[in-house]
């Protein structure tokens, strides 16, 4: 054993030197030799030798035993006592210092060597043990778990700091006491005391590491609770291990436990979160049922008021804002008093708990019926409320009122949960409302669509499949609903196997796809019996949010009747036009035929009168003049009759062009001036300048000439005729005034009617065809104007006509029938 450092304490010099020599020979390192206890203590503390050989009997006050005691109080240095005699008393004292060996002087080298080696070995083991113990203690101190060590009788041997803190017991008080007294536990779920914690720990957790953990089905209450010395409950998880010796005997046990309060809290929160999620999932599941809003809300209430940890009276109701803003209407309830249902059927915002909840948008809590509970009803029982606003998009759409047991304290965490719950309920209500609205709208749309006679279908533009249709379409197709939906439109409508292709089947759908707009296309089909069927197909695009056309609304209308009516009408029009043409032609021919014989008669008479064929007598001349006069009269009569016929039958064509009415009137007056002068009369014209107006110049001239002619005809010599032309904002007015014989009142109405003869009291000299005024009237009416007369019998008449500046004339272009038609 090389170089162990040894201190020798020996007051006999020779002995000491002998020991030193022997030790050196054995290979030890003698670091010092001292001769007193005091010196030994100093040397030991300074040198820290591996071993001390200590003579018991030393000179001085302190002997070896005492010195050893003092050294051992600070240092763990092994000491071997050297003694000459084995005094029982001394040995007894020496023993107490736990010496590592004795050597009785004189001793052999072999004894010395063995004793030293044993001592060194033992010291080394001791040291290791101490270090190990230290490590163990430090470990136990530093770990968070509580550790309790027991002997084979389950009595406490050791408790670390944590276990002392958790149990409330100091080790010194607990040591030796049975574990059941110190580690008192019970099952929190059942409340049962667990009499033997070790048995429980051993029985339930044989395998190391199997902890008292939660499963999903367990509530957080189902677990072990430690009741400490002071009665305080601490939730714990624990385990126990046996200490078994080499012979497999149980010599003790170690109980390890841990405070899991925080863990439980986290678990509890997690569990609550999970449960909230479960409840909300349940809610959503309810909302997906095909039920009415009322039924859904009833199920929600059933679900909510039976939540396990909220102490309800199992009553509740849901009010929502329906048709009237600012008023809550009870839509769904559970176990609410009948009188309450009546009184609280409609609650204005702001009134009582529900109304306040709606107006503030905040949760209302009360633990009893107090003054805030404004609404009272018969047999009101003690209760509290959680009243939650149902808010959607920042707007209160209703309230959810839950009835609590009286005195049920407020719980903010619970309120948080209920708020989440209320938000989901609000979402469900809103969705349901939207669904109802949508359904109503759909129903309306489908009623409208089905009441339309046009066959309507909606086509997917991707594959030309029919997505929807109305009843007219189904009737047309003559198929069941399921045979139409999803079928290709060209199959249903045309029995084609391919989409319609231009030019045979120009489909409006393609037109809509091409232009992106509404399109109309007309088709002519032939029915099974060869009957013509006209169809008008119109298509409109349906776009997605990106603006792409995804569907097309395809509407088909049977326009056969309309088309046939149109065709018929066209035919009738053609026939009417032809009849008109025939009439025109007829009148033209009649006119020609009637006038033709007059022409040579007239000319021949004139020739005789003009002396072409020799002299004639005065009597012959008079006779011929009379014939000639009457031929003229006949010609005029024919002209008038023809004019009337044309006007009455609408054959007369008016050639409407812008013209100066001033010029027309001036020319007419000028034309008639000679005639007037021949009758010894005077014509005067009074006119204001008038802008050009659109008229038939010839016809208006004809009318004015006729009126002036009449004025001359019905006046006596010396008569005065005034022609006046004036205008206002809308009309042009022409007046022809005479101071002639005038017209009787009763005759005025007859004036403008054809072939109405006035009685003979006006005298033979006024004879005429009676058609002039009728023609005038017609001409003026055709210009959108009117003609009338102001007259006093015996004093004269004023004929007046007025025509508007603007007059829509639908006359056709004048036809050159005379140039193109034969007799």
């Amino acid at each position, binding site marked *: 054993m090389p170089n162990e450092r040894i201190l020798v304490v020996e007051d006999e010099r020779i002995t000491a030197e002998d020991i030193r020599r022997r030790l050196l020979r054995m290979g030890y390192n003698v670091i010092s030799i001292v001769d007193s206890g005091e010196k030994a203590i100093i040397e030991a503390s300074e040198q820290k030798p591996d071993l001390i050989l200590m003579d018991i009997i030393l000179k001085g006050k302190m002997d070896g035993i005492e010195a050893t005691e003092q050294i051992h109080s600070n240092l763990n240095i092994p000491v071997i006592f050297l003694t000459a005699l084995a005094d029982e008393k001394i040995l007894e004292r020496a023993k107490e210092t736990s010496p590592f060996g004795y050597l009785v002087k004189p001793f052999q080298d072999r004894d010395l060597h063995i004793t030293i080696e044993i001592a060194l070995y033992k010291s080394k083991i001791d040291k290791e043990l101490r270090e190990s113990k230290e490590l163990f203690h430090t470990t136990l101190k530093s770990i968070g778990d509580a550790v309790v060590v027991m002997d084979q009788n389950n009595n406490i041997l050791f408790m670390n700091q944590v276990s002392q803190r958790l149990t409330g017991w100091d080790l010194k008080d607990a040591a030796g006491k049975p574990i059941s007294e110190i580690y008192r536990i019970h099952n929190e779920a059942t409340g049962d005391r667990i009499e033997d914690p070790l048995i429980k720990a051993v029985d339930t957790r044989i395998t190391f590491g199997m902890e008292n953990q939660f499963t999903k089905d367990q509530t957080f209450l189902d677990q072990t609770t430690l009741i400490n010395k002071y009665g305080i409950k601490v939730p714990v998880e624990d385990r126990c291990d046996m200490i078994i010796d080499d012979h497999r005997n149980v010599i003790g046990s170690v109980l390890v436990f841990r405070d899991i309060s925080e863990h439980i809290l986290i678990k509890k929160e997690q569990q609550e979160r999970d449960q909230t999620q479960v409840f909300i999932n349940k809610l959503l599941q309810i909302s997906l049922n095909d039920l009415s809003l009322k039924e859904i809300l009833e199920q929600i209430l059933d679900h909510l008021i039976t939540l396990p940890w909220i102490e309800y009276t199992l009553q509740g109701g849901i009010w929502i804002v329906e048709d009237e803003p600012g008023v809550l209407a009870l839509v769904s309830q559970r176990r609410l008093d009948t009188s309450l249902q009546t009184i609280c059927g409609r609650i204005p915002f702001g009134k009582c708990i529900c109304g306040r909840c709606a107006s503030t948008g905040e949760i209302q809590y009360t633990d009893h019926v107090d003054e805030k509970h404004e609404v009272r009803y018969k047999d009101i029982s003690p209760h509290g409320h959680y009243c939650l606003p149902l808010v959607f998009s920042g707007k209160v759409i209703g309230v959810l009122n839950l009835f609590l047991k009286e005195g049920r304290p407020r719980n903010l965490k619970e309120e948080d949960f209920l708020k989440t719950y209320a938000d989901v309920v609000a979402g469900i209500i809103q969705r349901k409302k939207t669904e109802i609205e949508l359904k109503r709208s759909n129903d309306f749309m489908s009623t409208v669509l089905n009441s339309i006679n046009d066959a309507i279908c909606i086509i997917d533009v991707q594959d030309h499949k029919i997505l929807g249709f109305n009843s007219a379409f189904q009737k047309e197709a003559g198929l069941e609903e399921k045979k139409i939906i999803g079928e290709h439109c060209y199959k249903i409508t045309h029995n084609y196997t391919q989409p319609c292709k231009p030019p045979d089947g120009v489909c409006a759908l393609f037109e809509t796809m091409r232009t992106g707009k509404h399109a109309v296309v007309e088709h002519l089909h032939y029915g099974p019996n060869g009957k013509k069927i006209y169809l008008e197909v119109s298509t409109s695009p349906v776009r997605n949010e990106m603006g792409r056309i995804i569907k097309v609304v395809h509407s088909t209308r049977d326009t056969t009747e309309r088309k046939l009516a149109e065709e018929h009408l066209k035919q009738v029009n053609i026939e009417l036009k032809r009849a008109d043409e025939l009439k025109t032609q007829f009148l033209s021919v009649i006119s020609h035929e009637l*006038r033709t014989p007059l*022409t040579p008669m007239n000319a021949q008479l004139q020739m005789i009168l003009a002396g072409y064929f020799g002299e004639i007598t005065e009597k012959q001349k008079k006779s011929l003049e009379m014939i000639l006069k009457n031929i003229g009269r006949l010609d005029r009569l024919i002209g008038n009759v023809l004019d009337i016929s044309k006007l009455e039958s609408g054959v007369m064509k008016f050639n409407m062009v812008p013209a100066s009415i001033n010029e027309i009137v001036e020319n007419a007056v000028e034309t008639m001036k000679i005639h007037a002068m021949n009758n010894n009369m005077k014509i005067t014209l009074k006119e204001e300048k008038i802008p050009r107006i659109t008229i038939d110049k*010839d016809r208006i001239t004809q009318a004015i000439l006729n009126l002036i002619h009449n004025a001359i005809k019905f006046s006596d010599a010396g008569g005065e005729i005034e022609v006046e032309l004036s205008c206002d904002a809308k009309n042009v007015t022409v007046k022809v005034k005479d101071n002639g014989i005038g017209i009787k009142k009763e005759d005025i109405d007859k004036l403008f009617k054809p072939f109405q003869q006035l009685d003979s009291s006006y005298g033979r000299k006024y004879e005429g065809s009676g058609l002039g005024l009728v023609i005038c009237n017609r001409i003026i009416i055709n210009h959108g104007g009117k003609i009338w007369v102001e007259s006093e019998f015996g004093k004269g008449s004023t004929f007046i006509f007025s025509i508007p500046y603007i007059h829509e004339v639908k006359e056709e272009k004048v036809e050159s029938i005379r140039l*193109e038609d*034969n007799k």
Partner: protein
Amino acid sequence: MTKIMIVDDNRDIAETLKTIMEMENYETEVAYNGEEFLGKVDAVKPDLVLLDVMMPGLKTKEILIRLKEKRLDDLKIMLVSVVRFSDEEKMILKNEFNIREYVTKPFDVTELVNRVRNTLR
């Protein structure tokens, strides 16, 4: 001698016009329809034609077109008709066929003679 051609399907009218024109010292040639007129006109080379409107056979417009084809569109023609022509018709006759003179039946002999005289001047 100035030559006047009279075209009218009514023989009495044609005879009357012939008499008047001869009394006024014009040489006359009569045709009773459009075809006859067109057949004779090249040979007769009249100075003036008194052309009736609405004769059987060729329509007036056709006669005028045929004349134009014969490059006789500068021939002086006076239309003799029972009905008056509208301004529009007169415009067409003037622009397309260079016709400016009209006589309405029944006519005043003196007026007719004056018109013929003026036209030929």
